[in-house]
């Protein structure tokens, strides 16, 4: 963790003290404005030693704060606050393209020009330091004229692409055109043509015609990803964003440039042409690609997830998400086990959930308490899944130790991605300890199966930290293999009783990330087919076993069992639910084109999701 921020220090960037999360952009050079954090700003209370020229600064109205007036409304903010943020506090929305709160200031889009009392000309709000007593005007005719003119210039060479553009519906050009321009085109002649499909890298493609040269992507790669792979080339009408010759945009953070691109220039090759943004709904969720647990929005339509987008979270991922995590949504859609089955190989037949549970218990019951029965759990499951499942393992199956499966170790980096590709290992450790179970490493399982010590296995999750085929062939030797799995695959084929399971996107719950931060996620849509979350299978198994324990929701699981786990006990499950309201940044339209909520067509997802 502590080495997080010096990921590219071999390239000469000075390591900054790690904080476990992406660093702020480096303090800007003095001539680029007020982006430096508060700690870099001289306290406003102390008048600096000035040369004899300018008059002394007025004493601050609110000591320690800078008091300015935005459109006649007084607002006091911390010194070093950006003018755009200060205006927002006063209820004024200053439009901007190139400014990004987590990047250095470029002030090149000119959209945020406003009138201030201490300058005869319009000034860019993103770059102009606030001064005591400054009066800022964001709605005067001069400002509106300037905004209209900027929009006209930005659209001058913009292609007529909305109908085929992935960004349509979440495009700042569209928003600001309607708010600040709404005039017909005055272009005579033809538009400048550039490369419409410049493949920048394995995951990003650029439409240079749509680009407005805000350089957010260039600054992101330089300052946040610290892999300067993008640059601006050419001048005037020939100016374009591109990769340096002979290189490609292959950073593991390249898709963030697509997020921060305010227009449809940078496009996600995975998502491109797959869905229209206004048909998608967004569920606040958690990325399960690694143990960092970045906050995300999962954009879905019907019962299919289309993409992950980062969700603002100051503690974990700020505004970013790695490409590997972002593309990890695919297991939610592809090769899903949607119905349970009994039997293995040619004997396999589909079964109703009730049949499958009954069969599982009939087979498991004689083995309860014997040495030959082992339990394997995957840290891909949520805390609720694990609470219910491990309780079943301990109290009904009478085991005292469980094997920890999970996805194999991968590569980590010093930014967001961790080497542990399981989202909830921390939660599993806490819960096992809280319920009094000991965890055994997965390595011991194969020899135990092959040595005949383990004859029966109940597995919650099919992810194994080794080649799935190899594990599956070892599992063929089991006398009983009851498996709860999301996805088809060799392991699922080896099961005697396969219980179709629903991944986190189809239910709500919590994950504990690598730093022990607990996060709630919301359900996007109901479980596919006859699949059910692991906790529900555990509840059904309790019932089959004649136990009185029942759960009807993941919330109930947490509330019934979290008190046994000290780390979970103080977590307020309801209060910690992420809001499903619109957030700053790119949001899909609140409703679909025909008035129904997006993602509503196939079945009745309620308009207000979640709790």
């Amino acid at each position, binding site marked *: 963790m502590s080495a997080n921020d010096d990921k590219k220090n071999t390239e000469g960037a000075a390591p900054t003290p790690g904080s476990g999360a992406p660093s702020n952009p480096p303090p800007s050079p003095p001539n680029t404005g007020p982006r430096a954090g508060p700690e870099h700003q001289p306290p406003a209370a102390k008048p600096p030693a000035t040369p004899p020229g300018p008059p002394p600064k007025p004493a601050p109205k609110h000591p320690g704060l800078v008091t300015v007036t935005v459109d006649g409304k007084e607002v006091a903010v911390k010194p070093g606050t950006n003018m755009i943020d200060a205006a927002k506090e006063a209820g004024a929305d200053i439009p901007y393209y190139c400014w990004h709160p987590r990047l250095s200031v470029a002030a090149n889009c000119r959209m945020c020009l406003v009138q201030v009392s201490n300058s005869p000309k319009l000034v860019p709000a993103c770059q102009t330091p606030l001064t005591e007593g400054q009066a800022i005007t964001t709605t005067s005719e001069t400002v509106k004229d300037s905004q209209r003119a900027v929009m006209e210039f930005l*659209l001058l060479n*913009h*292609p*007529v*692409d*909305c*109908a085929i553009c992935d960004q*349509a*519906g979440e495009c700042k*050009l*569209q*928003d600001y*055109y*309607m708010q600040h*321009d*709404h*005039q*017909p*085109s005055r*272009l005579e002649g033809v538009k400048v043509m550039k490369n419409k499909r410049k493949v920048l890298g394995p995951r990003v493609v650029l439409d240079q015609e749509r680009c407005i040269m805000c350089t957010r992507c260039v600054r992101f790669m330089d300052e946040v990803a610290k892999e300067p792979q993008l640059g601006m080339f050419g001048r005037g009408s020939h100016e374009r964003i591109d990769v340096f010759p002979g290189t490609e945009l292959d950073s593991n953070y390249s898709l963030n440039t697509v997020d921060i691109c305010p227009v449809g220039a940078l496009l996600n090759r995975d998502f491109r042409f797959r869905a229209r943004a*206004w048909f998608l709904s967004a569920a606040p969720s958690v990325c399960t690609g690694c143990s960092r647990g970045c906050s995300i929005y999962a954009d879905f339509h019907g019962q299919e997830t289309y993409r992950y987008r980062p969700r603002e979270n100051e503690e974990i991922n700020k505004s970013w998400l790695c490409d590997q995590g972002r593309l990890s949504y695919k297991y939610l859609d592809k090769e899903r086990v949607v119905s349970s089955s009994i039997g293995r190989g040619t004997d396999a037949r589909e079964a109703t959930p009730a049949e499958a549970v009954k069969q599982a218990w009939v087979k498991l019951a004689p083995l309860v308490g014997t040495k030959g029965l082992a339990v394997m759990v995957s840290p891909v499951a949520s805390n609720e899944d694990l609470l219910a499942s491990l309780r079943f393992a301990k109290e009904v199956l009478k085991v005292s130790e469980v094997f920890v499966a999970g996805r194999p170790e991968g590569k980590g980096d010093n930014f967001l991605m961790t080497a542990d590709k399981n989202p909830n290992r921390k939660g599993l450790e806490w819960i096992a300890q809280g319920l009094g179970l000991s965890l055994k490493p997965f390595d011991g399982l194969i020899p135990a199966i092959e040595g005949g010590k383990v004859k029966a296995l109940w597995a919650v999750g099919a992810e194994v930290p080794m080649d799935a085929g190899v594990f599956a062939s070892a599992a063929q030797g089991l006398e009983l293999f009851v498996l709860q799995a999301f996805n088809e695959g060799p392991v699922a084929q080896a099961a005697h009783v396969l219980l179709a399971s629903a991944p986190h996107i189809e239910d709500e719950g919590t994950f504990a990330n690598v730093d022990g931060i607990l996060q709630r996620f919301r359900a996007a849509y109901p479980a596919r087919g006859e699949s059910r979350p692991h906790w529900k299978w555990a509840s059904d198994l309790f019932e089959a076993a004649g136990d009185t324990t029942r759960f009807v929701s993941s919330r109930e699981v947490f509330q019934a069992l979290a008190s046994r786990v000290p780390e979970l006990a103080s977590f307020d499950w309801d209060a910690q639910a992420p809001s499903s309201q619109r957030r700053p940044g790119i949001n899909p*339209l*609140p*409703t679909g*084109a*025909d*008035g*129904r909520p997006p993602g509503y067509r196939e079945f009745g997802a309620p308009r207000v999701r979640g709790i």
Partner: protein
Amino acid sequence: MAEPRMDDELEGELEGHLKSKRMLVNLGPSHPATHGTVRMNMELEGETIIRADPEIGFLHRGFQKSCENVTWTQCLPYTDRLNYVSALMNNFGFLTAVEKLAGIEIPERAKYIRVIGAELHRIQDHLTCVGAVGLELGGFSAFLYAIEARELIMDRVTELTGARLTTSFGRIGGINRDLPDGWSEKVLKSLDKIHELVTEVDILLTKNRIFVDRTRGTGVISREDALDFGFTGPCLRACGVSYDLRKQSPYWVYDRMNFEVPIGQNGDNYDRYLLRIEELRQSEKIVRQALAELPAGPVIVDDWRVALPPKPEVYGTIEGVIGHFKMVMEGIQIPAGEVYDATEASNGELGWYIVSDGGGHPYKVHVRAPGFPILAGLPRMIEGRMLADMVPTFDTINMIGGEVEQ
């Protein structure tokens, strides 16, 4: 009223009455003598109505809630289905309310076209009502003349809007298309014919003994009761109250139109009938005047936040395509606030209470249907009267299920 005599001991042999008892009768919801799908729960004592309880809801479609789920423009087809006999008046009334909330002033020509459309549909509505009164009292020929005249209007409206019934005409900020070539002349010719046909209906009904006997003095409501119930339109004016929003708070260009507001005296079915016949003539006068004065110019405001850009701009320029996209996908952004606005529809005050939260969709749309309070007053008009009086009364109040039940 006196209790009917039940005691047959007092009756002579020749006058022996059948023993009667109170009967509960359902009139409707589907009955040839009720136009509109409404059910009357009636308690009868012989042929006397003791209690009448109109039960609505058979045409309930969730109009108000549906509007909250669509953009402002997409509400327009829903308004067609309120009073489906005069859809243009609903269209224009809704648009006028939205424009009032958004502070949009529509072009002159659009105002004239709205007056023409609304008055044509007032004629259509009154013709339907008058014809149906005749029909249900046994005068089939009068109905045919009225319907022939109505067909002429339907043809003209089809030429104008593309639809006979569900016009969805007009847009926020004006009218979506101008009058077709030669349409004005056709309307004038049609009005001539309609004038003849109305005269024919007038001759057939107004002095017809049967018609007069069944309508005069039946379905009476006093001026005070009518006001208390919240009657508006012809039913109120038939009681002698001169209240017409076109005069009281003129909208569009009604202040420039020369027309009279006829009023009745007795508040009975006959007065309501006569009033409609007279309003037919006044509306004709308004249409003629509006067509004569129709100014040239645009029919919709020139503002791309409200009016869709012209198609060549949409297909050829990014500005046009963005404007079109945002307006179609997100709806026209109406400033946050609430408004009540009303227009004089054929049956009375058609009021709109509209709330916007500043987005492209209505936050709330409530419609004050003129027929609702009138239907509520129906029991007062017929209780204690003969069952046969129910039929003309129900006709002349002209309850339209579409707007009452929404």
